[in-house]
Every structure is written in C-alpha cells, then in structure tokens.
C-alpha cells in the first residue's frame, strides 16, 4: 500500500481530517504532518480572545496519524476491501502537553507501535512543531476491526 493509497483509506473528511501527508510508515510506526489552517472552525471559539489549538484536537491529530494510519497499514488490504471497511474506536489516551500550537503551524507526528494484538493497537505518540520542539507526547490505544458485513 502506498502512502497516498493509505490516505484515501482514512475514514475522515474535513472538518475532522487531521492528516495532510504520511512521510514514513512501516510495521513499527508512522510519521505524518498536518497544517493547522487558521480557517479551522474551532479557532473561532478556542479561545474567543486568542486562537490556540485545543489539546483534544492535538490528541486527535496524533491518533489519526499515529494510530489509525498505522492500523490501516497493518491490517490486510484485501481483508479491508472484502469486509467493506473497518470500524475504529479510541479506547484510551494519556497525553502530556508542552508547547501551544497556534493557527497556521505545521506539526509532525511520530508514532511507535507498542503492540497490535486481538484488534487492539497501542502506540506511543509524539508531536513536534516546525522548530522541532516537542508539543505533546503520550500513549494512545484503539480498537480496529473489520466490518461485520463481510
């Protein structure tokens, strides 16, 4: 599966797609980038006085790049097609935040697989800003399983 095909298999659409590009992927982890465009809707309210990317959105970005992209890569391509897609659910996240991300900042997410067993994928994730400073890091787990209608 190419990196471009992988992006097409992601089940997200704007305004809740937080992956622009996958820059590296193998069975042990994924790397990808996202530009937080100033036009994103949540900046109108977070915060009213000064726009800052919400921590939950940074977590989501880490999960989409680090966990979901990796999970789709790890699952058998033919199986996904045969089952008509996959079901994804976040099961746990533990994140620590170090630097704010302002509108129009581009971030890099790097994930490292802890395990993928019995449909549960657990990863360590780190997000860096354009100055290569650590924005946040943590551990995210999710369940990825084939649709039942296969």
């Amino acid at each position, binding site marked *: 599966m190419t990196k471009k095909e992988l992006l097409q298999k992601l089940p997200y659409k704007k305004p809740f797609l937080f992956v622009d590009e996958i820059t590296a992927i193998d069975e042990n982890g994924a790397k990808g980038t996202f530009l937080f465009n100033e036009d994103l809707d949540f900046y109108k309210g977070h915060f009213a006085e000064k726009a800052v990317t919400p921590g939950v959105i940074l977590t989501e970005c880490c999960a989409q790049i680090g966990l979901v992209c990796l999970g789709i890569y790890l699952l058998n391509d033919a199986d996904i097609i045969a089952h008509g897609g996959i079901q994804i659910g976040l*099961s746990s996240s533990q994140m620590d935040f170090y630097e704010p991300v302002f509108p129009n900042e581009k971030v890099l997410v790097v994930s490292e697989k802890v395990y993928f067993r019995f449909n*549960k994928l657990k990863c360590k994730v780190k997000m860096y800003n354009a100055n290569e400073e650590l924005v946040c890091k943590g551990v995210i787990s999710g369940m990825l399983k084939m649709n039942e209608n296969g």
Partner: protein
Amino acid sequence: MIDNNRYESLRAIIKIYLPEDVKASDINEDSHFINELNINSAHLVDIVLDVEDAFDIRLENEDMDQMQTVKDALQIIDSKVSAK
C-alpha cells in the same frame, strides 16, 4: 475442579479492569466478561496480555474468541500451561 492459585491470580488481573459499577466480589467462575462484568473489548485484550505475562503463555485469536467467561479463561490457561 479448578486450581485455586490460578483462579486467584486471574481474579487479581480482572479486578484491575472492572468498571466502577462492578465489585471485585461480583467475580465468580461463571461470570461473563462482557455481559456481566461490563468489561469492554479493549480491556479484555489487556486482561489477555496480563494473563500471558502472569502464566508465561501465549494466546491466539481462537482462544480470545472462546474466552467468554472466567471459567473459559481458566480452561484456556490450564491447557496452555500443561502444554508447555
């Protein structure tokens, strides 16, 4: 006939993943992990991984599918441990 040491070790693992509305004293041999102990599928995986470490065994997908109740888990542990 169940091995009490194994049963107690398993209970200790299960206890960690119980939701707040289920008490440790509610765990018995016939308890169904998902329907009675309210353990979600992600935590069931955690239990299996802890069981693997505790008993030095490895479970496969079929074992996971069969593991519905505490008794099922004990049977799988027994057969894996004796096959070592």
